[in-house]
């Protein structure tokens, strides 16, 4: 085995200080010497690091970073270096499975696909396409999503399409749309290289995007390091490097950000000229934030007034500012409202569209951006507006279908509502691709109940028999990264191509091939009787996507597979104006807010009510950005005598999502083998809990048993990583989402994973019954249902 560095022990690797340029450092991890190298990029977080896959005798034997890639300059983190091992797992699915007499048994592709097609036709005939739902992922490739989007929207005509991106990235999209009129990340990763100040809100970048964090560490190690303001209730790796660390009570992001805005406005460092020329809503914003004095913020959020002032001084006086946000904002109370305040800060200081002034409304998953772009989730392709007739007609013309087939009478159904319809029985076919809701959704007992329903036909596409696949009626084995070709886009709009390096195992097929086959079997046609899905190869789908995105903010029309293979990463828009891609959006201060261009007519931030086209047109901002204020709303569930702790959930550095891949890499799994609950020393002492002891954590929805780890968190708060389900350990309930709440942000509809009231207690050791009450019984039945 050859490795350039030990990324398990030294997560970010040696410092290579930024001095006028970010030096290259090629990270590599090999099991054997490869015969060939194949161009790709990493799909284990939203950073999109360029890499090459090493192949020997038809197997993946390692990876190395690409030095000339604009995202990582050769670096890779622990997941990138070790995650590929999962491709070679012995427990990959190799044949389709069909549930017969309660048990999943191997079948042929023809039998499985015929069954799905027969079910689709029967359900559609009896109940309309409104009885069919798709729940996809942030892990597939652009060509796959776009094909699925066309099948759902113009083939079947169902409004029920969304994905797990609702859990990770919906607020990012919602906030960008509300402020700037359209989705699309304004900044560039190179903003890190020159910025004077960085504001990280609810974003433990050091753990979630390790290579991006390395870029910041290298700035900190060089001359003129930036100042860091970190807002996070936990003392994370990221917080350890902060100039100022604000630790708010859970659910108080809006008060903290309003407090910062208030101090910045009071300090007078706003850009009045920019505000006048390029925004609307300043007076209202000023009014709302003016009540948030540092003293009031201290009262509500528990942050010392002096610390808030220090933070405001940094974000208010630097001549450049880079801000990032992630799940600490998106999965918490007032998610969209808080994310929008970060945009507001940049707008009132006029710090947008310039070097060093990025806003990263981060995505959680590697290809989440593409579900949003292509309309495989609750959006329309090309950032089009479902409430804009002309946009619907553009799509209808492009696909050569009647506009009426495309659902546009209400916003596309969001994921949580899709699950609710399935629970109520009006959705009868649920097609899940590349994701594992039986571990990742909130309130798992409920999710398992839905997936096990007799009258719900569940199709699951996956490479492994996940907790979700085990409950399906049909399981389709899929090819994964490294076994198929396609493109995906990261948080700074960089598009990478990832190529097929090896054949998938057994009869596994790419999700792309499965949907193309489904469309053919369903005989979806356009108006002239030609096939609706006009391609059989990913490159043809990419060409189709170029037409669909042309003229829209996410314009890919200037790209091609050839260009993507010769250049490492191209940022959209890429078109006649920007043949090599475009580094930053909104350099001219003109936003996508005019009524004919915008992706949404907006929402009320408190209720989520949709504004009508007429309301919007009456005050068309015509290219100005929106400053949208938000009043504070306290969290719905608060700790009380019965459940005295705040629970928050999140990730650890070595794992991704539900560990479907990372849990199958020995190095990563050994580094973080099990779930735990992090709690403060004071709290543990009171309860008589010692470090490393197995404890019980309970909420109103369920309970789990995990090991206690003490320190690094505010008293009264507990943290549990959400990665751990049951496929590799079903001995005890341990998934964090047994405890979480089923409720969501009114605007983005992203669930609230970041707060729930729980109690924690010692396990007295009277036998085992408490261990498996809820999760266990179902898990036993899952195990019985599976044959290998």
């Amino acid at each position: 085995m050859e490795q350039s560095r030990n990324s398990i022990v030294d997560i970010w690797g040696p410092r290579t200080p930024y001095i006028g340029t970010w030096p290259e450092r090629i990270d590599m991890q090999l099991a054997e010497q490869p015969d060939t190298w194949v161009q790709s990029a990493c799909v284990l977080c939203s950073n999109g690091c360029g890499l090459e896959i090493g192949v020997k005798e038809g197997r993946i034997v390692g990876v190395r970073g690409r030095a000339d890639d604009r995202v990582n300059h050769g670096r890779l983190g622990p997941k990138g270096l070790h995650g590929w091992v999962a491709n070679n797992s012995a427990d990959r699915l190799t044949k389709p499975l069909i549930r017969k007499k309660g048990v999943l048994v191997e079948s042929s592709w023809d039998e499985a696909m015929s069954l799905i097609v027969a079910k689709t036709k029967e359900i559609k005939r009896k109940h309309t396409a409104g009885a069919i739902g798709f729940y996809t992922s942030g892990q597939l490739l652009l060509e796959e999503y776009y094909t699925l989007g066309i099948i759902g929207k113009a083939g079947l005509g169902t409004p029920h399409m969304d994905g797990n991106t609702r859990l990770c990235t919906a607020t990012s999209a919602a906030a960008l749309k509300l402020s700037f009129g359209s989705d699309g990340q304004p900044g560039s990763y190179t903003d890190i290289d020159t910025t004077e100040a960085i504001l990280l809100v609810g974003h433990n970048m050091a753990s979630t995007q390790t290579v991006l964090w390395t870029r910041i560490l290298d700035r900190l190690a060089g001359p003129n390091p930036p100042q860091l303001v970190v807002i996070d209730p936990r003392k994370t790796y990221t917080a350890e490097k902060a100039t100022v660390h604000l630790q708010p009570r859970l659910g108080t992001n809006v008060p903290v950000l309003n407090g910062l805005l208030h101090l910045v406005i009071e300090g007078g460092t706003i850009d009045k000229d920019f505000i006048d020329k390029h925004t609307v809503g300043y007076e209202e914003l000023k009014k709302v934030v003016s009540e948030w004095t540092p003293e009031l913020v201290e009262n509500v959020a528990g942050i010392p007034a002096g610390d808030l002032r220090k933070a405001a001084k940094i974000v208010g006086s630097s001549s450049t500012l880079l801000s990032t946000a992630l799940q600490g904002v998106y999965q918490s109370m007032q998610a969209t409202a808080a994310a929008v305040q970060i945009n507001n800060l940049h707008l009132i200081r006029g710090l947008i569209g310039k070097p060093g002034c990025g806003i990263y409304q981060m995505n959680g998953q590697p290809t989440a951006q593409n579900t949003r772009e292509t309309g495989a989730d609750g959006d329309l392709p090309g950032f089009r507006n479902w409430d804009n007739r002309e946009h619907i007609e553009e799509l209808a013309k492009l696909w050569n279908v009647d506009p009426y087939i495309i659902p546009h009478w209400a916003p596309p159904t969001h994921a949580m509502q899709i699950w609710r319809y399935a629970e109520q029985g009006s959705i009868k076919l649920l097609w899940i691709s590349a994701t594992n809701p039986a571990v990742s959704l909130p309130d798992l007992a409920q999710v398992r109940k839905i997936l096990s329903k007799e009258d719900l036909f569940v199709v699951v596409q996956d490479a492994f028999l996940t907790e979700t696949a085990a409950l399906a009626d049909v399981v389709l084995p899929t090819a994964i990264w490294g076994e198929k070709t396609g493109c995906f886009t990261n948080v700074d709009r960089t598009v990478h191509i990832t190529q097929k390096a090896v054949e998938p195992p057994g009869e596994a097929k790419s999700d792309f091939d499965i949907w193309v086959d489904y469309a053919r079997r369903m005989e979806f046609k356009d108006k002239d009787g030609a096939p609706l899905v006009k391609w059989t190869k990913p490159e043809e789908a990419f060409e189709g996507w170029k037409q669909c995105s042309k003229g829209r903010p996410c314009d890919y029309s200037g790209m091609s597979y050839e260009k993507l293979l010769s250049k490492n990463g191209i940022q959209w828009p890429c078109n006649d104006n920007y043949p090599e891609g475009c580094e930053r959006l909104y350099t001219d201060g003109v936003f996508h807010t005019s009524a004919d261009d915008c992706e949404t007519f907006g929402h009320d931030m408190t209720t989520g009510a949709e504004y009508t086209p007429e309301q919007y047109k009456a005050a068309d901002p015509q290219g100005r950005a929106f400053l949208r204020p938000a009043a504070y709303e306290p969290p719905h569930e608060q700790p009380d005598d019965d459940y005295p702790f705040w629970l928050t959930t999140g990730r650890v550095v070595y794992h991704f999502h539900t560990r479907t891949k990372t849990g199958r890499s020995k190095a990563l799994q050994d580094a973080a083998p099990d779930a735990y609950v992090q709690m403060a020393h004071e709290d543990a002492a009171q309860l008589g809990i010692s470090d490393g002891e197995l404890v019980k954590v309970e909420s109103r929805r369920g309970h789990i048993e995990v090991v206690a780890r003490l320190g690094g968190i505010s008293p009264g708060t507990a943290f549990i990583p959400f990665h751990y389900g049951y496929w590799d350990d079903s001995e005890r309930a341990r998934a964090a989402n047994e405890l979480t709440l089923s409720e969501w942000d009114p605007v983005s509809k992203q669930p609230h994973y970041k707060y729930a009231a729980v109690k924690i207690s010692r396990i007295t050791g009277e036998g085992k019954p408490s261990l498996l009450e809820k999760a266990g019984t179902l898990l036993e039945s899952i195990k019985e249902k599976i044959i290998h």
Partner: protein
Amino acid sequence: MHIGNYIGLVHESEKDLAEAFEKVSKHHAAEPDVYQMCQKLSSWSANHVLNLQPFIKRYSEDKSKEPDNLKRSLFSQPRSGSLALVRDLHDLWLLANEVQLCWVVLLQAARSLRDKELELACEQFDAQTQKQLEWLMTRIKQAAPQALVVAE
């Protein structure tokens, strides 16, 4: 002067609306968003009722039974399920419109009386009623196709 009549009318209507939001939230507690939002919107109406007190004193309200009758006919029995959700939101929308119209009528009276305080209150409450209506309309539009066309 008949302003007391409308003060009484809006007082009762807002009280009914607060109760109706509360009731619907309980009927449809399995819809987490409906539960949360109806609770919140109920508290808005309850708040309007509280803030109406000085004006009730100032203009001595006439108690009215009219809205009660409206409410009774709207929420005759508890309903659950997807069609019931649409019907309950529908009825809330009708009640909220009754409230909004009261605020418009009172606003006109306040202006003619040069009662700045009442004018401001009417404007603020009307804006919140408008938000209640907008949410109801959004949620009704979302729920209607599935409830009327797909659900059994």
